[in-house]
């Protein structure tokens, strides 16, 4: 298959409860793409993203994942007792990445609370910790679920910049989003 394609979902469908959330969705993400998932609350954006990420079985259709991907969901994946530093150190270890944690932390604006347990952090600081995982290891596909939530204005600007540079360096980004996007998308999928 064409190697520019980093992620392809064909004819995806999801059933929840007794109802069909969506069906026949086709997604193709190539290098440099930013694909926005739009739709009302409960329309199935998260579900679709999870199917693309391989976290849940599509009720119909198939997903090809030629490239590795990062996942940032609604939940940040932080434990109450973890500090931003220990969290990043942990996943760096799991992924075998040699990233400089302290550098990542200060990039993302968490230098001060780097050693405060997450249960004491502010909502935005938690979100930033989760987003910092993107910097631990380069992966060509990013799957982001409402990544801008809880971020302050320059936090949002920073994330937008991250996404842009990721696209510029041959990555692809799929993001579920509400309201106006701070970045212009290649394509929008509305559920």
């Amino acid at each position, binding site marked *: 298959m064409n190697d520019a394609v980093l992620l392809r979902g064909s004819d995806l469908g999801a059933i929840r409860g007794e109802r069909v959330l969506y069906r026949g969705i086709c997604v193709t993400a190539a290098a440099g793409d930013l694909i926005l998932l739009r739709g009302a609350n409960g329309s199935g954006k998260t579900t679709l993203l999870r199917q693309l*990420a*391989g*976290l*849940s*079985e599509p009720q119909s259709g198939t997903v090809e994942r030629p490239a590795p*991907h990062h*996942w940032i*969901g*609604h*939940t*940040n*994946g*932080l*434990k*109450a*007792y973890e500090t931003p530093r*220990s969290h990043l150190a*942990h*996943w760096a*270890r*799991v*992924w*075998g990445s040699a990233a400089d944690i302290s550098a990542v932390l200060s990039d993302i604006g968490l230098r001060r609370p780097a050693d405060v347990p997450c249960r004491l952090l502010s909502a935005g600081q938690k979100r930033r910790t989760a987003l910092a995982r993107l910097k631990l290891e380069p992966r060509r596909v990013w799957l982001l679920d409402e990544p801008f939530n809880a971020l302050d204005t320059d936090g949002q600007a920073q994330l937008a910049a991250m996404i842009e540079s990721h696209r510029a360096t041959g990555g692809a980004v799929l993001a579920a989003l509400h309201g106006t996007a701070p970045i212009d998308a290649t394509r929008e999928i509305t559920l």
Partner: protein
Amino acid sequence: MSASPLVAAFRSSLSEAWANGAGLLLPLGFFAGTAILVPFTLGPEADLLSRVGPGILWLALALSSMVTLERVFQADLQDGALDLWLLDSGSISMVAAIKTLTHWLVSGFPLVLLTPLLGYGLGVPAAKMVPAMLGYAMGGLVFFLWGGVAAALSASVARAGLLIALLALPLYVPALIFGVQMVEAGFDSPSFLFLSATMLFALGVAPAAMGAALRLAAE
């Protein structure tokens, strides 16, 4: 997959066990509890105590396995850590195995180490001590592995606690019986072999089962 995820899983679940302390709750509570309770209720005749002691330790092991593991996977599911583990697929069952083993190490193994103390206090003859400790170690391992499967199965389900009890108990019984017999009869008894077999079986089957169950839970 490389080893690093497993090492990381081990370290993280160590700190988890340490952080939410539930692991330490039961050995400690149980030790203090028994030390205070048993003589209260039985009177101090060493002979009687020495016969109750082992049984109580088995009970402690079975319970600590159930209670400790109940939360482990549920927490991962709720805070989204499970999603992250699932991303690099394949590893999940290994990771789950490591997690349960770690929790056995933290909440099951201390009970084994307590055996001499408790045993001495309860007047267990020193000769029996070594086979007893091995028996507890192996039996506890089996408990924790099956307890982990039950916990993984019930992570997404409501009424987890009940389910765990229902699922785990039948799986516990064989290890329990062989274990008790071994503590009585020592190494050269057949029950030692049976216990080892049970343990190997659990080690072989449980991780895969946990992996599958967790995939399901994340859906």
